[in-house]
């Protein structure tokens, strides 16, 4: 019977190996096409490998970076993601600690509003939010992080409060008795304990902000600033002939950093997903 089980497992391994290859095949198709001469990318032969006649080398990537100004988009995406996520992590962990330790009607209300905000679809607030952002001059890549903090506060506060509740109050009180101010206690005691939750939350928020399309489209001025998803949509959505080669290259430039980041900190990402789901 053990023999049989072993055999069964081997069959499963082979089956899953095949499925896995098929699973990431779409990414490879885009990669192959990004290496083809742009005129030879047609609907019917996207599955052909680049051959001698149409191998374009890095031409499409050069076109994407120079012609579409893709490096600029990359920069905006990076700035927005980094600034927003750092702000969310710092402010929301502070707020969550406050909510847990100061127990009154205000903190309770704030907490339930945060949970409520997670269910609300973005379309509900898109028009009014874009307008508010415009009026308060929060419509540049360097100030949009305030909007992200506001709209993203729900999930982050929720995750942090879940964890803060499990931190024993004794540790914090010991620090206070030893003469630590609340600020000191927060930075020296609480932050180190919160580290795993901070990483999990950071990952969930980065995945959201980096890939977000509608919010920056409505808030930022599309003529001046384009994040990567905006650039790709703008590029593809405009009518007329589309430079397919540059398009494929742009997609690859968007995906490659994410995949590298994923392979490097895979363990944290998967733990982050589980933590987010268990609390959510």
């Amino acid at each position, binding site marked *: 019977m053990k023999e049989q089980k072993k055999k069964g497992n*081997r069959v499963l*391994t082979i089956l*899953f*190996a095949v499925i*896995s290859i098929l*699973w*990431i095949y*779409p*990414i490879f*198709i*885009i990669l192959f096409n990004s290496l083809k001469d742009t005129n030879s990318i047609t*609907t*019917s032969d*996207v599955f052909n490998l680049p051959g001698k006649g149409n191998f374009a080398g890095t031409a499409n990537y050069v076109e994407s970076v120079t012609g579409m100004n893709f490096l600029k988009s990359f920069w905006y995406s990076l700035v927005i993601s980094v600034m927003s996520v750092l702000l969310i992590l710092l402010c*929301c962990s*502070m*707020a969550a*600690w*406050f909510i847990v330790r*100061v*127990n009154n009607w205000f903190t309770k209300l704030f907490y339930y*509003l945060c949970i409520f*905000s997670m*269910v*609300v*679809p*973005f*379309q*509900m*607030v898109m*028009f*009014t939010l874009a307008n*508010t952002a415009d009026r*308060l001059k929060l419509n540049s890549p360097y100030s949009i992080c*305030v*909007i*992200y*903090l*506001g709209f993203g*506060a729900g999930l982050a506060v929720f995750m942090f409060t879940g964890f803060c509740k499990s931190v024993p109050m004794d540790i*914090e*009180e010991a620090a*206070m008795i030893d003469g630590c*101010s*609340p*600020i000191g206690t927060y930075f020296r005691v609480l932050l180190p304990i919160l580290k795993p939750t901070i990483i999990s939350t950071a990952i969930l928020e980065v*995945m959201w902000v980096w*890939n*977000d*399309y*509608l919010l920056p489209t409505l808030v930022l001025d599309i003529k001046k600033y384009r994040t990567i*998803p905006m650039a790709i*949509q703008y590029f593809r959505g405009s009518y007329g002939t589309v430079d397919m080669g540059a398009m494929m290259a742009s*997609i690859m430039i*968007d*995906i490659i950093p*994410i995949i590298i980041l*994923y392979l490097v900190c895979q363990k944290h990402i998967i733990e982050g*997903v589980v933590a987010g*789901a268990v609390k959510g």
Partner: protein
Amino acid sequence: MIGKALKKYWPLFVLPTFAAFIIGFVWPFIWGIYLSFCQFTTVKKVTFVGLSNYRQIFSDSTFGHAFWLTVLFAFLSSILINLLAFVVALVLTKGIRGTNVFRTIFFMPNLIGGIVLGYIWQTILNGLLSAWGQPLLALSAKNGFIGMLVLLCWQQIGYMMIIYIAGLNNVSPDLLEAAAIDGCTQMQTLFRIKIPMTMPSITICTFLTLTNGFKMFDQNLSLTGGEPAKATQLLALNIYDTFYARAGKQWKGIGQSKAVLFFLIVVVISLVQLRITSRKEVQA
């Protein structure tokens, strides 16, 4: 004690987040509800019209179509994703060789954003369809719908799989051993022990897939753009389209009232679903 000391520091600890929350959520939300009762083209030209926007929603045939399509899409995608993710998770908790590699690969698509996903699959599906002599995505509502299902499965199976793996790993080995001693078949172990014990994960995953299906926007926009003739438009895209792509001064108000309705639908569905599945959770 700590609470008392902390309370004095509220401008530092809670004010920034609260202020941003008001700007980014509370105010737009309340204002949005108000505007759903108004006719407006810009925020300066607002006239109160009462319930007229809501009445007009029902005479707009695109909304009804988008609504039923979204319901169908959300349920189908939720069932497909959960079923497939659970099966994959079952296999990947058996301890077969290569488990870690498979897990890494299955999860990967989840990191790619909706817009980019849409264009990846547009390229591939159009290639396949043209090879099979079928109408392309933008020309056939049926193909577009199936395309969206395929896309969403590809994106989310990995995510749900991770949650199911965590759930299955939490099933106590004692229970499984006891079942084996009592002579349970594999099927019995699955239906009598593994599934009931992973009910919390099932609750979460159904919740996530249902709400994701309902709220799907980016993938819809980039894969089909609602073509042909708005036939593959889901609710979120329909609302966006009503707001920004239609000429006529009444549409923004109608769009906003559609959004309020959409919000209510999402809330009701999530509450009902949480009720139903969490009732099935058991204690061991």
